[in-house]
């Protein structure tokens, strides 16, 4: 279903520079209602890495994502972008971020193409000038035939693909995904997992993927950061040392099972550490 535009990005594997893209330094976040969502959280994300944040609900994994995206400030601690090449008018690093929410978060009044155009439109790119990029982004997610459809005409999985295409159109360095496939059925989820991995291997962005599924996180990521709740913090940092490309054969392999058990144990440890869930 996916069509790869291999000359549009560096070939697979070449994007591992090992440089740090973003780091959280002792970040804490207290909401106005007094809840301590994050406590003294430190995390380095290397360029090109596929990292999953795994944890029970209420462990602050979405909060981490929002803080990295610049939606909401930290209560203490800092977010650093050592590799930032440019700065915006306020002196903040231009973050070049794509964000995929748990819901597709599409504008129902706009066609698929116009939804994908949005990030460019907000930066003053006309529809005509953006046309090629919009179609390319839709091609990446296999929806080029649905450019003129409205979101309500699409299935849940297709809406999520549109949401991904919209996040990709700015060619972000960092893709933040907040449980993007949680609401989808298993077949669709597997398919989108595979497609996401293909795209990642092709284009080599950094991905931070929030999930509460052990299986999904092991399948996708090079590294799983297990978080514990109340207050949210890093509980364990696991490396998933299995080669890409990963496919359905990997999903049924012993290595996969072992990693799943490891991650599952870590998750249970995290839940126990956080008290009653």
């Amino acid at each position, binding site marked *: 279903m996916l069509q790869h535009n291999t000359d549009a990005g560096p070939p697979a594997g070449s994007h591992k520079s090992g440089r740090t893209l973003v780091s959280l330094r002792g970040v804490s976040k207290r909401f106005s209602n007094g809840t301590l969502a994050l406590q003294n959280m430190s995390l380095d994300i290397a360029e090109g890495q596929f990292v999953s944040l795994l944890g029970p609900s209420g462990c602050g994994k979405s909060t981490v994502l929002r803080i990295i995206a610049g*939606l909401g400030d930290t209560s203490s601690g800092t977010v650093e972008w050592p590799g930032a090449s440019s700065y915006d008018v306020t002196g903040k690093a231009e973050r070049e971020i794509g964000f995929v929410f748990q819901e597709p978060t599409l*504008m129902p*009044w*706009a066609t698929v193409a116009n939804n994908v155009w949005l990030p460019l439109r907000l930066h003053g790119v006309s529809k005509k000038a953006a046309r090629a990029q919009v179609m390319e982004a839709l091609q990446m997610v296999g929806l080029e035939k649905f450019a003129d459809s409205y979101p309500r005409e699409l299935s849940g999985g297709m809406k999520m693909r549109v949401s991904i295409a919209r996040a990709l159109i700015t060619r972000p360095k960092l893709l933040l995904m907040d449980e993007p496939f949680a609401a989808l059925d298993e077949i669709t989820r597997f398919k989108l997992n595979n497609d996401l991995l293909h795209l990642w291997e092709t284009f080599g962005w950094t991905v931070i993927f929030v999930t509460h599924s052990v299986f999904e996180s092991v399948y996708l990521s090079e590294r799983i950061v297990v978080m514990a709740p109340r207050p949210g913090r890093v509980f364990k940092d696991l490396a998933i040392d299995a080669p890409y490309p990963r496919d359905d054969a990997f999903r049924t392999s012993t290595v996969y099972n072992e990693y799943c058990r490891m991650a599952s144990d870590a998750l249970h440890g995290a839940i126990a550490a956080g008290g009653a869930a």
Partner: protein
Amino acid sequence: MSASETAVRPAIATPDGDEAPVPAARASRGERIARIAVPLTMLVLVLLGWHLYVTLANVPHYVLPSPVLVVQSLITDWPTLFKSLIITLKTTFSALGLALVGGVLLAVLMAQSRLIELAIYPYAVVLQVTPIIAVAPLILIYAPSTTVALLIVAFIVAFFPILSNTTQGIRSTDHNLLNLFELYGATPWQTLIHLKLPNALPYFLTGLKIAGGLSLIGAVVAEFTAGSAGANSGLAFRLLESQFRLNIPRLYAALLLLSFTGVLIFFASSLLSWLLLRKWHESAVRREN
């Protein structure tokens, strides 16, 4: 879903599968005919009953004129009635136009700033809940001319549904979409134009439907209060005048024009709503299960 479809289909499929949809189409055509025929038949029956009653019971025409007499009056008095209709229409649509602009502008202002909302909203509510017919005499005293007074009264009645609906629509914007706009560095203006206003559109259109009817009511109420303001006499004034002169056929004729105007406004706003929402909003799209 597809599994259950394939499991069920063989059981109901006819030998030549093309036949199945035909009865459904016929049924929907029958339904469409009924939708027009039933109310029309009803109308004819009522008119017929009315006419028979008036003729057989010898009801004097200054109590209840026969429908024939009403139509006659509509034709003979057309020049007067038409002039009045135009005056009422002018008041109605100017008030509606002002209510649209005023309501939307205020809604946008209130959505941008909590301070403005606190300053304005309570008084908008007070204006709305105070019976307009009680305030109208004051407005008539203070307004520079009767025309302006009529306009103010109709405006006050019509603008609140637009204000409150549009405000609600702007407020109910999806938070994730707001976050997305923030993430991509959208200016407040861009967020308003590309996100908040489109989101408020269905709410606004509901407000418009209500306001359309209310602006006509407002115009009539204002004309009633203004009474014999002379040259600028709209349909409501003709109505009162016909009552004083016991010209009941003409009263009915004026009434007919008023309700026809109301129906027309309702249809126009429904059509506008359908045109704007049919592509994407659940209220306007056709469902098929």
